Each structure stands twice: as C-alpha cells, then as structure tokens.
C-alpha cells in the first residue's frame, strides 16, 4: 500500500467535512473492496476516512412498504435480519450469497454500492427493485445512480447513509457464481411491483449493471418464464475476459432470467 493518513470521524457531518477538505481522501467502510485494491497499489488515497465508528448507520427498519437499511449494515446483518427475511426474503438471500462468511462479517451495503463493482450482487438488487439511495445530500433513484464500471452519481464529498428498498410482490435473483471468487459471472434480478417490472443484470455488461428493457416489455403481459421463451440479448456491450466471452455472458442472461422468473 502507498502511505495514507488515517482519520476516524464520529458523525456523518464530520466525515463529509474530511472528504470535502481533501479531494484525494477515500471513505473506508468494511474495507473489503478498497483495502485489496490499495494493497495492489491500484488506488492511492491520501487519506482514509473510517466511518466504522459512526453510530446509527447500521439500522434495518420496515417503513411502510419499504425496508430501509443503513449503509454500514454488514452483509451478515442483512442476511440474518428477521425483518428482511419476513418482508423481502430475496434481499436476505442475496446478502447471504456475497463472498464467504468472513467477508460477509465485514463487507457493507453502502461500501458495495459506492464501489459499484461490475460483478457485485447488490447493484442488481438495487436496480432490480428500483431502490432509492439516500445520501448526506439527497435521494438518488437507482436508475440515476449507476454510471458505469466503478462509477456512480456520488459526488466526492457525498456519503451514502441509507438505502430504501421497496417491497415487491414477486422477486428473485439467480447468479452464475465464479467458482473461485464467488463474484457473479452473470447475475439476474427480476421483480414485479404492481405495474413496475424490472430485469436487472450484473456481471455481464461492459459498463456495469443494466436493465433488459426487451424482457421487461415482454413480461408486462405475464410475469412468467414463458413470456421470454426464445428471446435473447445481443452480445454487443457485454464484457469479455478470461472467465467468459461476451456471447457466453449474453446467453447466460436469458438462461438466468428464465430461472429467476421460475423461482419468483
């Protein structure tokens, strides 16, 4: 790692001020994306602002027809939360699929979303449910939040504090897990909330998570795997690497979407 200054604010406001003063500073949540990248010297923040001691950022509450989760909620907390399991079980399932047990003990919801790894699971849930990202400044709709690989709408001194997930009548996530890393080679999240139907894909797109509008359109008639039978997704814009070609990833999207619809 390159050298950095370590700062430990006790409030969101203090953390925002630290970030505003130093444009090269980075926020440290669970550290399970940022520290590995720093160890490889792919990131060189001048300072780490560790929000691990800021209180009130890991709450999980049912508010009306939504579940509101604090940005510092660890994956294990979301996976084991009785509130989440009862009201939106798919969210608990996805949280329980991330990484391995020790990683889930440290990794956070806000950290995953701020990082926006193109193979991460949470972005698919957030976009696939049309969740709202609540920050120190504003509320951002999922459709406006993800801006490409490792890019988000967050400003340099803006901190995610909560995420509000609307409850869905039907929802499911299917993931083709990379056997070594556990990341999604491709993951597809489907949901139906009254008239809002969403199909969100992680892992496949060359610019991160995205929605499959053609599938969503076809599902308006009937929310069933049959409605997208025979439909495909073009390989243009898909990621190609040693783990899979663009064509393979495009193929997996249709397969996993059908499986998710069958499970929803």
């Amino acid at each position, binding site marked *: 790692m390159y050298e950095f200054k370590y700062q430990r604010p006790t409030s969101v406001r203090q953390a925002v001020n630290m970030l505003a003063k130093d444009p090269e500073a980075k926020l440290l949540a669970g550290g399970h994306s940022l520290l*590995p990248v720093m160890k490889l010297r792919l990131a060189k923040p001048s300072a780490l602002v560790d929000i691990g001691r800021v209180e009130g950022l890991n709450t999980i509450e049912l508010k009306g027809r939504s579940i509101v989760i604090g940005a510092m909620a660890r994956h294990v907390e979301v996976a084991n939360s009785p509130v989440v399991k009862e009201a939106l079980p798919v969210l608990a399932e996805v949280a329980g699929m991330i990484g391995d047990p020790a990683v889930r003990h440290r990794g956070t919801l806000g950290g995953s979303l701020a990082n926006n790894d193109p193979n991460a699971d949470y972005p698919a849930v957030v976009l696939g449910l049309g969740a709202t990202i609540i920050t120190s400044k504003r509320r951002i709709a999922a459709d406006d939040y993800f801006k490409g690989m490792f890019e988000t709408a967050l400003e340099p001194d803006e901190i995610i504090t909560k995420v509000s997930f609307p409850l869905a009548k039907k929802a499911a996530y299917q993931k083709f897990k990379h056997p070594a890393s556990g990341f999604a080679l491709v993951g597809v999240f489907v949901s139906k909330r009254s008239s809002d139907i969403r199909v969100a894909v992680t892992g496949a797109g060359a610019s991160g998570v995205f929605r499959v509008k053609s599938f969503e359109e076809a599902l308006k008639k009937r929310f069933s795997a049959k409605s997208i039978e025979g439909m495909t997704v073009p390989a243009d814009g898909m990621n190609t690497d040693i783990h899979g070609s663009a064509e393979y990833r495009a193929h997996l999207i249709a397969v996993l979407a059908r499986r998710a619809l069958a499970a929803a």
Partner: protein
Amino acid sequence: MPAVSMTVNGKAVTADVDPRTLLVQFLREHLRLTGTHVGCDTSQCGACVVHLNGIAVKSCTTLALQADGGSVLTSEGLAAPDGPLHPMQEAFRENHGLQCGFCTPGMVMTAVDMVYRLGNDLDEHTIRQELDGNLCRCTGYHNIVKAIAAGAKTMKGTSKAA
C-alpha cells in the same frame, strides 16, 4: 504514527503503528503471534482468519486501526499454552484434519466461529458451505469436514472465549 490499543488473547496491547499496518501484520510482526498465517493476501484463502469482537474476520483485509479498542482472539489464544488443546484443535488432531498445517489455524478459527453461529450439530453440507472462504491444498477437505463435525459436538458446553 497513530496509537492502536486492543486486547489480544485476553492481554491488553498498545503500539504506535503506520496506518498501513494490517491486523495480520500487527499480530505477526509486532506481537510475534505467528500462528495466524498469510496465505493468498487477497482475502480468499482464510489462513489469516482471527476473531475480532467475537466474529471471524480475515485479518489480511483489516487494518490494525480498524480493530482499535477491540478484542482479538487468535489460534494461540484458544487454549492455555501448557493445558489441553481446545476441543476443536483436538478434533483436528484426532481426525487427521491437516497435512502440511498451513491452513489449519484459519480452519480452526473459522470452525469455532461456525459453532458459535450455527450450533453444535453441523451437517456435512453446512460445513462445506461455510468453508467457502478457507482453502486447503493438501487434504481434499474430507478430514477437515469430519474434524469440524466432531469438534462442534465436543464443544458443547464450552463457553465463548475472548
């Protein structure tokens, strides 16, 4: 350099550290507790697993400063140096749950954490799933799984350490 204080295996320790110091470096290089290993150094292999405030974490992906004020339990702290082995360590010995031994400290710490979270009756499927983050290149896992199932049972009635 910022100061860091924590309890390690029941003993209070304080040191001034470079902020870059990882928890595993702090344990191994500052405290000379070399029972915690560094395998992959990329949070995949689990050789570095220790308990921080009672839960299993990868100490190669945690800054020492993130553990400031916390309580850490390492392989060395599971049993008294001159006393009998911890029931989980004994189960690994009894079931030949290791060959070269490099992954063993992390395996044992993960296994003990598994028992704290999931109880004393662990079936094979659960154990294999829960070992997702611990790699072993010798045993083929079979005896590790047997050891954990046996150790979980003999841990019944033991209290949670540090």
